[in-house]
């Protein structure tokens, strides 16, 4: 077995020497832009407006795309003006080769604006490994879904998957969905159709700018015994934390929050932040406003580095998430999955680095 592995690895390395992955992809994609040796790619084949500022993109996937479970999230990378940007979305599985990406335009949201306004049929997106904890095997007698705004997207794929696997015939599912106005509600026809076909499914839509209340204790009281309910909530971070405290007594509570406030991240240089180093599996606290490299060195960690002045690029490593500031020119960077020169950047928020 080992000998066989050794042989294939020698073979691969010889093939690689003749034609590297990227070069092979270059030629393959002359034939079909979805073809690739090892990249998960998807092509937009249909674009439709499903609510105000909200579109659904139907994606045709190549064979490398990992499908994931309903309710999970996919990192999605798009190219805008020469730069690749990664964001996380909940995708709905339509059939073996197609996924549906539903996006609502966020104020100042570079990627969501691009997807809603500029994306076209034929555009190619790169997908990452799906992750997330919302599962469809429900152990309690009842499932409650709470969604706010575009938090509806993982709920839709859960509902779709529950209806396809016939779990909706056994388990009662209730959806509570908050939006600002009537035009903001997405997929209302779909929800209506499911409710007609499955007596176990019920839903309510709340319009916060039309005098409906935001999520509060009154909503909890209509639901009966909390210890028989599994609660999934998805929405802005404020919504998710409210849900978590209101349903503390429920059998299972699972919340997913997305942050809309990353642009107002505080800009002080005082205090400490946590740096998670994924390769060495460590988390350390380092001061804000100092070079990440020297702060890590003070903790006894020795990252690969060279010039210590931002020119040689030897210390560059991938930042998975977090906000940083360049100490030379003050440029801030909040983008996930970016190469970061740790010798001339300081941490502004908790960071996850590939070290």
């Amino acid at each position, binding site marked *: 077995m080992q000998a066989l592995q050794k042989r294939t690895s020698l073979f691969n*390395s*010889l093939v*690689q*020497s*003749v034609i*590297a992955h*990227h*070069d092979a992809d*270059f*030629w393959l994609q002359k034939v079909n832009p979805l073809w690739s040796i090892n990249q998960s790619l998807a092509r937009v084949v249909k674009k439709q407006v499903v609510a105000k500022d909200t579109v659904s993109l139907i994606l045709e996937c190549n064979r490398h795309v990992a499908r994931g479970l309903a309710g999970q999230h996919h990192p999605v990378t798009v*190219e805008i*003006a*020469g*730069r*690749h*940007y*990664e964001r996380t979305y909940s995708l709905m599985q339509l059939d073996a080769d197609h996924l549906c990406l539903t996006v609502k335009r966020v104020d100042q949201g570079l990627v969501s604006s691009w997807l809603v306004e500029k994306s076209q049929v034929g555009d190619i997106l790169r997908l990452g490994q799906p992750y997330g904890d919302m599962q469809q095997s429900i152990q309690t007698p009842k499932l409650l879904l709470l969604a706010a705004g575009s938090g509806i997207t993982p709920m839709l794929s859960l509902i779709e998957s529950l209806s396809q696997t016939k779990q909706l015939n056994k388990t009662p599912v209730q959806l509570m969905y908050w939006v600002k106005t009537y035009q903001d509600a997405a997929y209302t026809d779909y929800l209506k159709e499911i409710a007609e076909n499955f007596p176990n499914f019920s839903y309510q839509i709340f319009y916060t700018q039309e005098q409906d209340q935001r999520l509060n204790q009154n909503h909890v009281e209509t639901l009966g015994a909390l210890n028989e309910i599994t609660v999934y909530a998805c929405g802005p971070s404020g919504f998710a934390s409210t849900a978590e405290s209101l349903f503390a007594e429920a059998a299972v509570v699972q919340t997913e929050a997305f942050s809309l406030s990353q642009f107002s991240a505080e800009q002080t240089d005082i205090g400490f932040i946590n740096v998670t180093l994924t390769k060495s599996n460590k988390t350390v606290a380092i001061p804000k406003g100092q070079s990440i490299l020297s702060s890590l060195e003070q903790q006894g960690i020795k990252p690969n580095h*060279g*010039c210590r*002045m*931002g*020119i*040689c*690029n*030897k210390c*560059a*490593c991938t930042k998975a998430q977090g906000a940083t500031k360049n100490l*030379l*020119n003050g*440029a801030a960077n909040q*983008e996930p*999955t*970016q*190469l970061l*020169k740790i010798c001339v950047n300081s941490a502004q928020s908790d960071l996850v680095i590939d070290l």
Partner: protein
Amino acid sequence: MNMPVKVQYFKNPKNRDLTAAELDAFARELDQIKQEVLNDLGEKDAKYIRRVYASIRYSSFLGRALLFAGWFPPAWLLGTGLLGYAKIMENMELGHNVMHGQYDWMNDPKFNGQTYEWDTVGTSDNWRQTHNYKHHTYTNVKGMDDDVGYGVFRLFPEQRWTKFTLIQPIYIVPFSLLFQWGVAIQNLELGKVVYKRKTMDEFKQEWKPVQKKIAKQLFKDYVFFPLIAGPSAIPVFTGNLVANGLRNIWTFSIIFCGHFTKDAEVFPKAVLQNESRGHWYMRQIRGSSNLTGSEAFHILTGHLSHQIEHHLFPDIPARRYREIAPKVEAVCKKYGLNYNNASFVKQFGEVVGRIFKYALPFKK
């Protein structure tokens, strides 16, 4: 064994002495030039590097295809030329620049400075150490920057003369023809092994990845393609050999023109003590020289014809060097620094002059 000799360093009188305050102001002006480029990076630069990449793919495909008809002399000539062009562009305008992180802002895995592997026998990892770090940080500092003579040439009076140096005008010829091999073994520091300053085990550890890369490169150019060419095996083999040789001579010539012209200076290690950013910038300018030429020429040199701009800002896309060159020149003039810029013929002549002159024990 070695007598401690005080080496005298020569300063080029074309450069004015700058005070610490002047150096700070000088650094701010250069930082400003860089910032303007950073603010403007985008679609144009991404499109450009993708076009470079595509042109390399097409020309190497076409070159290799023509070599399959290599018994027909014009096909061999054109095929070899195209393959040589592809290798030059891949090494200089794509590989070298991508590995500096010039396109990291695109966040495209294809142009990632940390993972890019280039089409030459040297490993990218060793290059990132000897070139990106040592050569670019300690540019022309004797004893720190191995590129100053590559351990085998005496190009400055400050370097030690030996009897061996006398024949450097002869061995420079095979050195230039085999330039990629010199680069490949540079980080192994064979001299240290000979003088027992590095153990055999350390050496073997470092040798392994180099050996693997060499094997891959030799397999591709001298086994795989000749074999699949069948009856054209010989013209394919010779075409690949000549294409690699052309690339070697070209890169050697451009690189030697970058730091070893008549006006270039070397520096003692002492300059590194608490060196300010302004002084670092000044050292890059005093140790580098540019080449004048057409747009096509600049692209073929991977913009190393703008060695000064490259050394000031190694991490901005190289195509921008052409556009900022007049601003850099104006700043140099303002602060009384020599902006060393001349034709390839003149600069290369000066390099050859140094090779011959310092083969002899001249002390200045």
